[in-house]
């Protein structure tokens, strides 16, 4: 059973490569372009990992991340924040909201694939 990955990203340009890369790694990939739709998909599909953009229309990735972490159903769901917000304060915010990784654009796709692989092969420590 392949691991499920959900990409929530409103920039179609990066979705092309992200989706392709994750599919090539043998994951089951789904894509949504906003947080509302993303939340619905998460509740229905229960993905193992979410590649979540922060700058989304209407509701930010920070907010969705925070909400998911407040819900114990998603304790084991890995959240990787993908963002162009490159400052220390944004990184701190991402970690405070419960992201497992905070990846700043531009990033190496090879490193991203490795990070996703590492995260999915371990269990989330809740303490």
């Amino acid at each position: 059973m392949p691991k499920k990955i959900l990409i929530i990203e409103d920039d179609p340009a990066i979705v092309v490569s992200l989706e392709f890369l994750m599919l090539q790694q043998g994951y089951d990939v789904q894509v949504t372009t906003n947080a509302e739709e993303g939340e619905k998909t998460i509740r229905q599909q229960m993905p193992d990992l979410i590649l979540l953009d922060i700058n989304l229309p209407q509701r930010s990735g920070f907010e969705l991340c925070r909400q998911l972490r407040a819900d114990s159903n998603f304790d084991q769901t890995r959240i990787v924040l993908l963002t162009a917000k490159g400052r220390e304060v944004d990184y701190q915010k991402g970690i405070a909201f419960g992201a497992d990784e905070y990846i700043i654009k531009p990033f190496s796709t090879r490193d991203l694939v490795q990070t996703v692989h590492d995260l999915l092969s371990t269990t989330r420590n809740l303490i």
Partner: protein
Amino acid sequence: MRPRERLTFSWLLLSFVLLTSLAGIEFYVFVQLSAAQKGQLLELLFPYRYFILVPILILLGLIIFGAKWVLENLWLPLAQLTDEVELLFSSRTSSSLTSRVPLHFQRISCLLNEQSKRIEKLQKGIESKISQAKKELEQEKNVFAALIEELSEGVIVCNSSAYILLYNKSAQELFVDQENGNTAENTNKSQLGLGRSFNTILPTPRLKYTLNELQERHRLGSSHLVQHFSTWFGSKLLRVQTIGILDPENKLSGFVFICEDLAPHSSDYHPHEVLELLHDEQRRASIANIRSSIETLQDYPEMPTEKYRLLMKTIQEHSVKLSEQLTHNPMHNKAELRVLCPLELTPIQEWLQSLNINPERPLKLTCIMADSSQTWYVQLNRYFFSQVLEFLFQQLHQLLHLTQLEIRLDRKDQFIMLDICWQGKELAPVELRNWLNHPLRSISEDQTVNISEILRQHDAEIWFEGLPDSLEHGLRLFVPCLDEMDPKFELKSHINLGSRPVFYDFDLFHKTSLSKKWNEVLLTEATYTVFDTETTGLNPAGGDEIISIGAIRIVNGQILRNETFSQLVNPQREISPQSFQIHGISVEELQDKPLISQVLPLFHSFVQDSILVAHNAAFDLRFLQMKEDSSGLIFDNPVLDTLLLSAVIHPNLDKHDLDTLAQRFGLDFKQRHSAMGDAEVTAQILLELFPMLNSKRINTIQDAQSAAKKSYYARLKY
């Protein structure tokens, strides 16, 4: 009434009283007699009538003319001598008694002159010592002034009511209102002036907010009395740093404003802005797209053609986008917001306490701090962030009909959690989203900034927190917290006068009279604009016009020779030969000068917040009043007239014209019958009159106005 007229009147009255009393007594005695006694008396006296009447008339004549002689030769010279003695001992200039005095008083006059010379000698000795001490103090002040003068930033020092006490050259240059086209010649074109209100010069709500905020912080015992704001002044974008000044008793005695024009730099990037460019999120996204596409292409060369094309397209599109971004400089708006909404280190608990005091707010706030022993600092723009909170309170009150809110403050790692909690209905997420787009009061009319932008500027997040089965709900504001304070922060938190060298001792700080009502202000503490006009003729109602206005300011008893107003005016009519003979200004000279309609608004603004002073003010004011309808400008400042004040001081001296007063006080005219020259001498006369008025217990503006009204000259009308 003039002295001589008063003398004649007194003499006539005395004679009349004498004659009527004598006649009355005789008549009374006569009517008391019986008819027989009256007949006997008349019969007895009639043969001797001439012997009785002639001596009586001679005696009466002697008494009446004797009285006249006494009044003219003793009373009047003595009254004049008294005025002169008063002048002799109160004037700062060297003078001696000149009145013609009767022979038997000449010894007194000589003694007084000798005494006056002795006092003058003593005074000179004291003055030379004072002057020496002043010189030393002046040197120290000059060092300080030179230091301030050298600063590239504009420095303005105000008292606690925001009235200007000191400013440097850079500040003077910053506050020139180029847009209103100040046309006055030889005039201080800057709007700054000692004793003027900084609030009037920079009428932005940001300034008022900042001053209230610093006063409130000081009241609450905070020593952090520094705040920044940015605002537009004409075409200039000013960044103003405001620092509270504490006196040795720890009272807030004034403010220092350090102003810098940011506009010249707005087209350039500072080094830190270049770094900011690298952080630009759009660029990062484009680079990320290009990089991930290239790497995918490298790693999977055998990918389907359709995918290959899509990735190539991404590379091409985002390379173009990146180039465009570099050309069009998209950081500009962001940089501008950072300039307009500067953040400063703020102790959040203290800020919340100051926010709590708002009597107009319909909601009751209760603040609960998780840890009151520690001060948490955040980077905040109080002006905008307070607006955000006030807006949220207002919306919660209106939408959910709340009357009470609880503010809870806690810290999680590097962030402050500011929770606005209530009991009752929950808030729909869509409402909060709409609120975030709400525009806030900004620093200029054509520029708005919304809550969401302000939150982003603060790196803050906001969300609704509520459990479906709970009655308690809340909005959580998540604001980055600073771990350690900047060491410079404490140093620049306020200025303490007690810790400065002695040359920093400005008496002006303690003067609060500027904020008092005019009539209560002491003569020596008021701010004056002394002015004079030259005109085409003497009849304002008959169409004569102003051709020149000259004015100079007096603040705290000092004539400010660099704060003057001097302007020739084109009257658009002929000048009468008599007037030309006086001032020597010809119509040709005035051809290219501005019209009175252009000059009056500038003059009106120059005299703002001051008492108008003129010699024979009724004449000059009449000309200004004649223009009230056409210009819409009303000169309703309180007025003092040096002519009337001189008559109050020396009611027994005949002459009070400008030349006589100048001579009396030993003053020289730079240019007699020029508006500026006459205004300057009038200003000096006013200062000479102050000690004399004080000796007559005329201390305030109201005292002076009431005394002047009673003066004979106050009856003059134009």
